[in-house]
């Protein structure tokens, strides 16, 4: 499934042993994908390959992280991998929705690629429907985390220090039987499936998610990426961190073209 780029440094570019892999879930508001865009754009990560897959709707365009005429002409497709060896970071960006009935095979292939490329841990950036929160979740921070048992051993203590909130479980049969609790991530796309599969396969995975609604999700993306930064310290966190993330050129015109002057 993973196809390395030719000019990206040869075999070295597809060796991710010990790296942290960032994966966005295609979820409500596309927040995970927007946050991944911010990370790739700000850290100027290099494209090292792509996924050749029949599970995502095909799309193609010119380089979404173009900064100048010279680098604006490289083709970009729906699932690409970017890397930053200096921070032992690799990111997969997903740019289109899943084809019906194909999300399961994609999850399986993704997790087996994670194992074969020897990534140390996976951080899944996701979101969940804000309107499905219960009374307690409406108060306080809208950001949550989840850790697989294997990663809990490694970084559980750090989460306590950061004062992060773990995603609450909900009753399996609300109103009837409140004792049996299950994980429920409405609007999270493949988040729950990837998380439960990682738990059973012994993969070190963390899920970072934000409660949000559809709309202008740029502020949600900034909130999620700052949350990630509290842990990974990818950029220096100063007082006004929002201004230090670089938005990619592909974020232009998210809400339509200019208006025709004849309208006025």
């Amino acid at each position, binding site marked *: 499934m993973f196809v390395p780029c030719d000019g990206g440094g040869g075999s070295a570019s597809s060796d991710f042993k010990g790296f942290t892999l960032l994966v966005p879930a*295609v*979820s*409500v*508001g*596309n927040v995970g994908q927007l946050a991944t865009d911010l990370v790739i754009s700000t850290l100027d990560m290099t494209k090292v390959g792509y996924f050749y897959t*029949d599970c995502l*709707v*095909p*799309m*193609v*365009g*010119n*380089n*979404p992280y*173009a900064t100048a005429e010279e680098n*604006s*002409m*490289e*083709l970009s*497709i*729906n699932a690409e991998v970017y890397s930053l060896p200096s921070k032992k970071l690799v990111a997969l960006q997903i740019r*289109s*929705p*899943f*084809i*019906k*009935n*194909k*999300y*399961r095979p994609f999850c399986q292939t993704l997790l087996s690629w994670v194992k074969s490329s020897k990534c140390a841990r996976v951080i899944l950036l996701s979101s969940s*429907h804000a*309107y499905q929160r219960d009374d307690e979740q409406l108060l306080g921070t809208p950001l949550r985390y989840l850790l697989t048992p294997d990663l809990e051993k490694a970084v559980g203590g750090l989460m306590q220090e950061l004062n992060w909130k773990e995603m609450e479980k909900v009753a399996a049969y609300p109103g009837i039987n409140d004792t049996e609790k299950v994980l429920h991530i*409405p*609007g*999270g*796309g493949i988040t*729950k*499936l990837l998380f439960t599969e990682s738990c059973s396969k012994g993969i070190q995975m963390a899920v970072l998610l934000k409660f949000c*609604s*559809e709309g202008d999700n740029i502020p949600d993306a900034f909130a999620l990426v700052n949350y990630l930064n509290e842990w990974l310290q990818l950029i220096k966190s100063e007082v006004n961190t929002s201004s230090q993330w670089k938005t990619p*050129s*592909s*974020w*232009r*015109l*998210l809400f*339509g*073209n*200019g*208006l*025709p*002057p*004849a309208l006025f």
Partner: protein
Amino acid sequence: MATFFGEVVVAPSRAGVDDEESAEEAGEETPEDREIRRELEKKREIDVLWTLKSGASTESSAGEPLACSTFIVAIGHHAAAFLSSFILDSVCWEVVGVVKLWNEWCRTSNTTNVLPTDSFCLFYRLISDPTVLLCQCSCYVAEDQQFQWLEKVFGCMRKEGLQVTILSTCPVADYKTQESTLTLPSPFLKALKTKEFKEQVCCPLLEQPNIVRDLPAA
């Protein structure tokens, strides 16, 4: 999500996340479900049929991969009509293949005698240079069939030295630009090209944040 009138509705998500998907993962598939799904998948399978010199139709899996130097693919009614009006004629081009498929939007057959208003997907070869192939695809190829189309068509060709040109159309209203599209002189051409394409492109490249999707993208 609550509307202004106070009723609660489920907001459709841009991310394409469906609640029915989570229902699917809740339970295991029964053998009947599996059988139904398999039948549906079989119905949505694509068949690429090549007509050999002898005139007999044959499955693409039999025989050598086609030697091909230039492959022009026209996707959509407008692009297909362009080829019909300016390129194709019965003197220089011969029909060499057809794609048979079905989806909710259209059905093609394996007849090569088609009307311009039909949905069809035909392959032509230049008689004077049999390595030049042309494809007119005026039928809609559904999301789940695009990858299959790609693999089955390109699977029949030798890819060394192959130059592929894809012709397609998009509505001007979909074009993202700083000015309004109302004042934009249309129609206009834009291109996308791979690193390996070294020749001069006859029109400007497609600017960010515009993208191409579906079969042309595949």
